[in-house]
């Protein structure tokens, strides 16, 4: 058995070709990759051919040092013709490249044929005018921007972009945000926890601009049009839900998973609120449904009863309940009457339901949950799990 084991001290890794060695270094921060040039003569040039660059100023004592490292790596040490597959630039609070420096860096990155770009200005909310070149990057497939305020731009053209994440990216106007989306015709994954002000007045030209969407994570927004723009998605996660105030919610024909996160309703926002049951027919193929209720303690009474209002007429149960819904989860359940009636409604009308998960932090939850367990159910095989 032991005859096949090699002797530990023999270094066979160093005999591997450059691309394999640089592959090992590619998931490491570029600063660390640079130190592997000290290992041996064999390893000395390897880090310069890594296709994935990751610059994070956190690992440097100050910005001047960081800037020098970025500059020498990109402009003097690496061969200009080495391609760059992925480029990450993370800047902290005190880092400040000048506009023309950004232009120069991103120009080189674009020339390297970058497919994956991550740009994070942690904690630094200043308006960035992304070099126009970036915004028409033909090779880009993944773009993740974080902590950036976007300055005005003319045109966005990402013909191959599939994944777009905006984490705390602010746009000067909702129009800009939508313009950005229009530039990504084959987008599949959109994660936008951005600040896009009230936008109900915005008129969109093409509501079918994003036909390939699969996974969408957005903040609740009153913009009915934005919902239309993402209506082809299969998975929808809405954050910071503040009631159901959409006036003209479109149909979501492909949607199978929906999550309503941090669902909180203040007394002031009750006006014009629609009920969940009323909007469910817009999701005819919904199979997995999650709601997370948030309670603001100072507002006291909890969920707005409008949102959870149920119809007493069983003949009008939404299609997704009678033929699709398999799992239903609810977090932050407090057992108020309207909550109870809502869950009861789901149990009563969901014919193919498999599991219901109820999570509650209340002390008297045992009684609350017992009450739920006794509700009549349409699906004989459904299970209720309590957490």
């Amino acid at each position, binding site marked *: *058995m*032991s005859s096949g084991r*090699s002797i530990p001290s023999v270094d066979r890794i160093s005999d591997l070709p450059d691309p394999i060695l640089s*592959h090992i270094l590619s998931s490491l921060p570029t600063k660390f990759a640079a130190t592997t040039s000290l*290992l041996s*003569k064999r*390893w000395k040039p390897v880090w310069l051919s890594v296709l994935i660059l990751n610059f994070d100023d956190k690992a440097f004592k100050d910005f001047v040092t960081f800037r*020098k490292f970025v*500059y*020498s790596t990109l402009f003097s040490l690496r061969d200009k013709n080495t391609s760059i597959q992925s480029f990450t630039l993370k800047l902290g609070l005190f880092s400040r490249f000048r506009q023309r420096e950004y232009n120069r860096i991103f120009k080189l990155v674009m020339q390297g044929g970058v497919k994956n770009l991550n740009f994070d200005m942690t904690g630094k909310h200043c308006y960035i005018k992304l070099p126009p070149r970036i915004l028409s990057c033909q090779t880009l497939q993944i773009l993740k921007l974080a902590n950036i305020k976007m300055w005005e731009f003319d045109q966005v053209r990402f013909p191959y972009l599939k994944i777009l994440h905006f984490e705390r990216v602010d746009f000067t106007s909702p129009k800009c945000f939508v313009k950005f989306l229009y530039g990504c015709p084959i987008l599949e994954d959109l994660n936008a926890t951005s600040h896009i002000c009230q936008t109900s007045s915005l008129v969109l030209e093409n509501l079918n601009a994003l036909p390939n969407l699969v996974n969408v994570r957005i903040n609740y927004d009153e913009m009915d049009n934005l919902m239309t723009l993402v209506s082809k998605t299969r998975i929808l996660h809405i954050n910071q839900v503040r009631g159901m105030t959409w006036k003209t919610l479109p149909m979501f024909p492909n949607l199978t998973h929906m999550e309503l996160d941090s669902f909180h309703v203040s007394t002031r926002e009750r006006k014009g609120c629609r009920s969940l049951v009323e909007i469910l027919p817009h999701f005819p193929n919904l199979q997995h449904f999650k709601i997370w209720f948030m309670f603001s303690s100072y507002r006291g009474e909890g969920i707005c009863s409008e949102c959870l209002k149920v119809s007493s007429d069983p003949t009008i149960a939404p299609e997704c309940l009678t033929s699709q819904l398999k799992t239903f989860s609810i977090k932050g359940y407090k057992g108020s009457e309207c909550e109870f009636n809502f869950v009861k409604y789901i149990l009563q009308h969901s014919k193919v339901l498999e599991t219901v998960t109820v999570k509650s932090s209340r002390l008297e939850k045992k009684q609350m949950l017992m009450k739920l367990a006794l509700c009549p159910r349409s699906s004989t095989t459904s299970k209720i799990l309590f957490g």
Partner: protein
Amino acid sequence: MAEEVSSQMNSLSISETNPSSSATISLVSGDDIVFKVEPTIAKEMETVQSFIDETDGKITTIPLPNISSHDLPYVIEYCEKSIAGKITKEFEAEFVKKLNNEEVKELFLAANYLNIKKLLDFLSQVIADRIANKSVEYVRRYFGIENDFTPEEEAKLREELAWTFTGVDPDDEDEN
């Protein structure tokens, strides 16, 4: 440890000897142990598959002199999971927990030799995680790298590297 591994090996070869399938592939490790695998497993190993293709499927016994009978079952296990579409974060975490540094390196070499991209990517990441933020001396020991720099050369290199971090002014050439 040895017993545990060999029992695992037996169970693998038994489960892989499926009587209904006529075309099982025999992989022969460097220490002459035969592992019978389904053709679908062989497909995951590009090197093996191209060997089979070159001989129009006539040859089904493939010698793998660079891979020991200790490492091959791990490779087969990974390929099986991959075919079943069951490569999850949990599986990978469990898989790597069983491996010491030497085994990780051996499997990495095996994955490279057999040209199994997914396994190679995964193990690259494992190795990267294990050397991340370690000293140059540690990384040398990890790979078994012999330092072939003279003390003068090394000192000069360290200085140059320090210069990379601190010594040069970014040139302000404006290229827009």
